[in-house]
């Protein structure tokens, strides 16, 4: 057997991380964020929103089968997908904004990978005990006790993963109905496949891969390292205050005065990605700030001021090194880049809101027949055919008029009526929340030249919305 032991290995074996439990202000914040985000994720599909008898009553629903996206009072149709695109752009710029203001706060607090990893690490502590117990169990040989603990832990992982996947599908169908169908085996196969896939990914990514996702797989930390600058808040070990390290005992006997860091390694022990923050900023640091909590606790115990590890900008660090007081965090957040992002983000948001407020709940699209482009009738009249789509985006049936605009002497009729009833205005009832296709034949007197033509759709009710569609009327040229 050849010995595959290169000097510079391309593959680094994962060093398992067993973060220690910690208390403190940032841990509390993490708890709060976890509870809020998980609550939003699990509760949202069960919220109800009355939309009347013609639309589903689920507050947030992505109805792929019927091509509708419901979000409380907003209903997005496929042709309005730019609202969703706008929301996604806002989410992207929002990440930029957060990054430039408070660094990798998304990674540290709100990213699903972080939240679920945190959740699973709590399960680890609950089943196996805190860091030291976990380390001991890891090193112990496989016996009945270890097998039992592992099986229980993985079963809990699997349950959490299953509920994660199970909650996801609730966004795509009526949640109570889908839940019943799911458990009685009547849900669509895609529901089971989706749950199985998400269960598997949550189980693997949250239960086993954990920080490796952040370090190796996720592109966002790479993008963020490019976005951070000297004005970004990052978790900083204040080496000018901490170095040289030494325990309290060593400090008493040392020849030269030692720094504040007592080298207790607590910041390393609590780190969920297993890094040493004292080595400076690094890609493994998701800025969850748990090391700040750990260090603050220790500093309080040894009677030194808090904040040896703290959020700081590179600019501020330089200032602090020269003995100047640090600037308050709220002031650091506001700099040109955050203001620029905020302006763009807010601008898109306002534009979307404006578009949402001004959007019509009625829509007309016109497609002209091109084969044949025009028809001659027996009396020499010229006829063109059009396909109109009348969209009623209200949750009630509406009576609408379709009016022919332009084309002097022109009249129209549809494919379900006789030409004798042709008129310049047709009345149609469009069912609630539906698109009605209307085949129209437009006729003009013999000798009519080709010209522009329009249709106006108008709802005859209190709302009285109007939309227009422009098209062309074709006719034989001269000499035919």
């Amino acid at each position: 057997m050849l010995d595959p032991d290169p000097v510079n290995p391309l593959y680094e074996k994962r060093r398992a991380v067993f973060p220690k439990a910690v208390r403190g202000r940032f841990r509390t914040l993490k708890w709060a964020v976890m509870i809020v985000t998980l609550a939003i994720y699990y509760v949202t599909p069960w919220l109800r929103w009355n939309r009347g008898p013609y639309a589903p009553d689920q507050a947030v629903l992505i109805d792929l089968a019927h091509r509708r996206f419901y979000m409380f009072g907003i209903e997005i149709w496929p042709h309005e997908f730019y609202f969703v695109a706008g929301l996604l752009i806002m989410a992207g710029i929002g990440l930029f904004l957060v990054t430039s203001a408070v660094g990798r706060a998304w990674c540290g607090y709100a990213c699903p990978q972080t939240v679920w990893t945190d959740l699973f690490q709590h399960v680890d502590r609950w089943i196996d005990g805190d860091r030291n117990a976990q380390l001991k169990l890891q090193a112990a040989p496989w016996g009945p006790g270890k097998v039992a603990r592992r099986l229980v832990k993985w079963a809990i992982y699997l349950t959490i993963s299953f509920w994660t996947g199970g909650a996801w599908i609730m966004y795509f169908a009526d949640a109570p109905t889908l839940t019943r169908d799911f458990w009685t085996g009547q849900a669509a196969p895609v529901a089971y496949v989706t749950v199985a896939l998400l269960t598997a990914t949550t189980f693997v990514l949250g239960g086993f891969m954990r920080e490796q996702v952040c370090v190796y797989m996720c592109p966002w930390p790479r993008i963020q390292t490019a976005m951070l600058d000297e004005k970004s808040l990052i978790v900083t070990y204040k080496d000018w205050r901490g170095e040289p390290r030494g325990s309290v005992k060593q400090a008493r006997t040392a020849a030269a005065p030692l720094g504040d860091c007592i080298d207790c390694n607590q910041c390393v022990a609590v780190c969920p990605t297993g890094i040493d923050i004292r080595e400076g900023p690094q890609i493994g640091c998701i800025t969850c700030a748990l090391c700040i909590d750990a260090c603050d606790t220790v500093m309080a115990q040894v009677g030194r001021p808090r904040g040896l590890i703290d959020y700081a900008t590179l600019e501020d660090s330089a200032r602090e090194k020269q003995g100047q007081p640090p600037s308050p965090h709220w002031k650091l957040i506001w700099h040109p880049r955050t203001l620029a992002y905020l302006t763009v983000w807010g601008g898109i948001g306002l534009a979307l809101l404006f578009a949402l407020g001004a959007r019509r709940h009625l829509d007309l699209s016109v497609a002209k027949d091109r084969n044949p482009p025009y028809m001659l009738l027996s009396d020499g009249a010229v006829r063109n055919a059009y396909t109109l789509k009348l969209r009623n985006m209200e949750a009630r049936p509406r009576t609408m008029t379709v009016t022919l605009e332009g084309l002097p002497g022109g009249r129209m009729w549809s494919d379900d009526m006789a030409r004798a009833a042709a008129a310049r205005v047709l009345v149609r009832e469009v069912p609630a929340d539906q698109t009605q296709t209307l085949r129209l034949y437009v006729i003009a007197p013999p000798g009519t030249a080709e010209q522009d033509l329009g249709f106006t759709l108008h709802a005859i009710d209190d709302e009285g919305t109007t939309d227009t569609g422009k098209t062309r009327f074709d006719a034989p040229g001269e000499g035919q």
Partner: protein
Amino acid sequence: MAKPDDLPPAAKGQHIDEATGTRTVGHEWDGIEELDTPMPRWWLWTFYLSILFSIGYVVVYPAIPLLHRGTEGLFGWTSRGELAADTKAETDRRAPLMAALAATPIDQLQRNPELMRQAVAGGRAAFRVNCVQCHGAGAAGGAGYPNLNDDDWLWGGNLAEIEQTITHGIRQPGDAATRTSLMPSFGRDGILKPDQVADVAHYVRTLSRKEGPSAAAQRGAALFAANCVACHGPEGKGDRRFGAPNLTDAIWLYGGSLGRTGAGAPNAQPGARPAGGHKLDKATIRMLAAYVHSLGGGEDFAPAAQAAAGAGTATGAANAPATAAAAADARP
């Protein structure tokens, strides 16, 4: 061939590379050597698994071509069988609609707007398969092939008449109910002299005001009265009983130029359309009839549809050119 391990490494030039700790393959080109890096384990396992999979695949699915047939596989799966299953599923899905259509007499169809709508949609698809070869994708026809979009009908334009035409065809030998008529070849058969044919052509063109009165047309009028009125009527308005075209309107089956009108009279080439009844089922024929009827020239709309449409007529009723058309529509 001897395994490399059987030979002493030195004899083959193999040695352990210092930097990587991996054995070299033993070749050397100007001091450049190749490492014999072992396959990654996961890669090998994937490779073995895919071999296992392929064995299973060959057993389960048709795989090995033999002299006349291939192996059939345990599941009996074929792509043709899959197509047949898909086709059957689609046929089953449409079965209720087809049954309803087959059970509804064509003159009752318009009383059921939903069924009518589905029939038109189904007819559009069936038209693409069965009719576009002659009538064109837009149903606009061509010289000799009637345009189905207009309001000029040789054999009648209400649903029942269209269904009759589709079912039994035109000039189809062997179908007792087929529509039959014959335009005599006045020129070729010597019934009329060539200059007489030209005179009739001039007269026919005056009927639809394509040209003004002339001496030739006057001579043609007399010939028309003697030879043509039996089918085309004294006013040239045609007769649907014989499929005789209306000569006074703006629509020409073979073209309205002097040459085309003239050619029709001397050398009539009667068109034929296949009788769909031998090939298509009743429901498909009804769907086709409904589709053709919906193309804009359909006649005899049901009173219900008329009433619904009538709601919108008030504002447009003043328009002039419809009167003639309305009169034409009222024609039986």
